[in-house]
């Protein structure tokens, strides 16, 4: 995954325009576990959405496995996003109309039905991996914040993505739950080689990552710091 000269601006009115990202170059290696830090409003979420192919940059290119995604159409981008990237958001964002297991199954059933035994088994296994076997058939409103976030992580892993993006995944959790969630993600990273890019304000957690990327005012603060050689 490589970003080259990413710029993103928003229209504010008919004429005025505001640039949030001012040319970002970044390379993410396979299996890396990165923290993205920076003050509020510095453009972290905007960058994450661009990396996740949820948003398109105003200028610059996003390469995935050497392929330039700026040339892809909406349908191809959507498919690539579904298969290569998993998302974990700050507010869990489970679909309340579905149970925990069904939420985990959702990314897999987008082009299948819900009855496939393989998909059901995989959803169960993923819930087991995040330690939530017992809430598989619960609806999300009956679960704690930490549980919901772990279900969201299981869901993000459903398609065996190369990269999981997490925007302040521990922002709404108490420190113990936050610690558990990060431990879980590190463990998955170690076991399956999935890359993680995590936005966090928590320096303690960030220090447990391979690398911290600092963003300020839409620019990367160089050089990036290697914490664990």
């Amino acid at each position, binding site marked *: 995954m490589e970003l080259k000269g990413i710029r993103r601006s928003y229209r504010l009115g008919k004429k005025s325009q505001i640039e949030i990202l001012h040319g970002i170059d970044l390379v993410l290696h396979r299996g890396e576990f990165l923290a993205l830090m920076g003050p509020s409003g510095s453009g972290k*979420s905007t960058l994450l*959405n661009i990396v*996740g192919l*949820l*948003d398109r940059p105003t200028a610059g290119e996003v390469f995935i496995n050497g392929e330039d995604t700026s040339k892809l159409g*909406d*349908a191809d981008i*959507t*498919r690539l*996003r*579904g*298969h290569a990237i*998993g*998302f974990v*958001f700050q507010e869990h*964002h489970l*679909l*309340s*109309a*579905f*149970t925990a297991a*069904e939420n985990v*199954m*959702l*990314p897999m*059933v*987008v*082009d*299948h*039905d*819900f*009855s496939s035994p393989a998909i*059901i088994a995989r959803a169960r296994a993923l819930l087991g991996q995040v330690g939530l076997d017992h809430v598989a058939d619960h609806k999300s409103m009956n679960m704690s914040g930490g549980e919901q976030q772990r279900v969201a992580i299981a*869901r993000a892993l*459903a*398609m065996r993505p190369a990269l999981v993006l997490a925007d302040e995944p521990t922002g709404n959790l108490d420190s113990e739950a936050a610690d558990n969630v990060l431990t879980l993600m590190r463990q998955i990273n170690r076991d399956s080689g999935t890359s993680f890019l995590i936005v966090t304000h928590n320096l303690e957690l960030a220090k447990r990552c391979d690398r911290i990327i600092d963003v300020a005012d839409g620019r990367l603060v160089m050089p990036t710091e290697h914490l664990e050689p």
Partner: protein
Amino acid sequence: MNRLLPFEWIAAVRFLREGRLQTMFIILGITIGVAVIVFMSALLSGLQVNFLSRVLNSSAQIQLLPPDQVARPLRGLGRELEDSVVQRPAQRIVSIDQWQKIQQRMLALPGILVAAPTLSGSALAVRGDASRAIGLTGVMPESYFRIIRIPNYIVTGKATLASDEIIVGTQLAEDLGATLGDKLNVQAANGNAAVLRISGLFDLGNKAAIERNSYVSLRTAQSLLGRAGAVTTIELKISDIYAAETLARQIAAANPVRAESWIATNAQFFTAVNAQKSSNTLIRAFVALSVAFGIAAVLVVSVIQRSKDIGILRAMGTTRGQILRVFLVQGGLLGLAGAIIGSCVGIGGLVWYHSLVRQADGSELFPLILDRQLFIVTLILAPLTGLLAATAPAVRAARLDPVDAIRG
């Protein structure tokens, strides 16, 4: 969730189920709309069928009559018309020339099932001190009764017509103080008279008919009215009742007769039916339209409420097309649910109304006609309406930018 449905269907059902109150209210709304439409349609066609069967049971679909006698204006050679007002001559009992030949010709035409010659005139029925003016129709029972089913309306006696027998309406018999088997003295204007025995009493459910009408054999009528061998009308029964007018015109053009179809005779009724039909169609269309707007409104709100869900689904690889279909399916399902419940409510209402309203004589005002086609059409149109109504909200949902949707 062990169901073999594609993602769109399951998501649609789940969203509807989760928005329980909203879903219930809109289904209630659709139900009312569908019920009104089903009720009105079935009632209208019932009333229509009732009228049709009444008309068709008591009159022929085409009547052949002798041509109008026309007074020829006096006209001098090469001069102006002397008198522009031409009086129509009084119409005597005029018979159809060569009626046997015309009857044969009619039976040879495709689409004509029965051709029954009749001779009508008026007479006086006398019994003791009582006398009544009656309409006398001479018929050949074997053909005539296949058109006007007098045997079905016989209250007492039999529909037989020997040369000394007469069938009269129940009211006429009562007025004359006569019953089955009694003899009536029937006198024609020309002075001919005959004594006829009442072989049957009929009730056509039509006051004028049971007060005045009587049937005798064609021969008896001919001798009474002094018109041996003559008939005044040939009544026709045809296979396609709605082709009556066209057929009547063709017959009149090719034969020396007037031909009156039941459609022309009942033109007023058809005007009324058509007016009612179009006002009904209008009402039904507006009911359907308001139902459609109701569905659209509910789904627009649902799209706004679900924008985070939509964003999440898009983030995990759901395509715009799938999101579109999730909401289209919701519209279709709402329409289907409303159509099923509404049809049941509509039928229930109709059955109830049917038992409630009666005609003056206690018989049903309209027959209960539960046309299968009406329900098939309803079950197709309502989901289609739902689908159409869902288009705008669904497009809106599909166009949502996932980043905006997730941020909320």
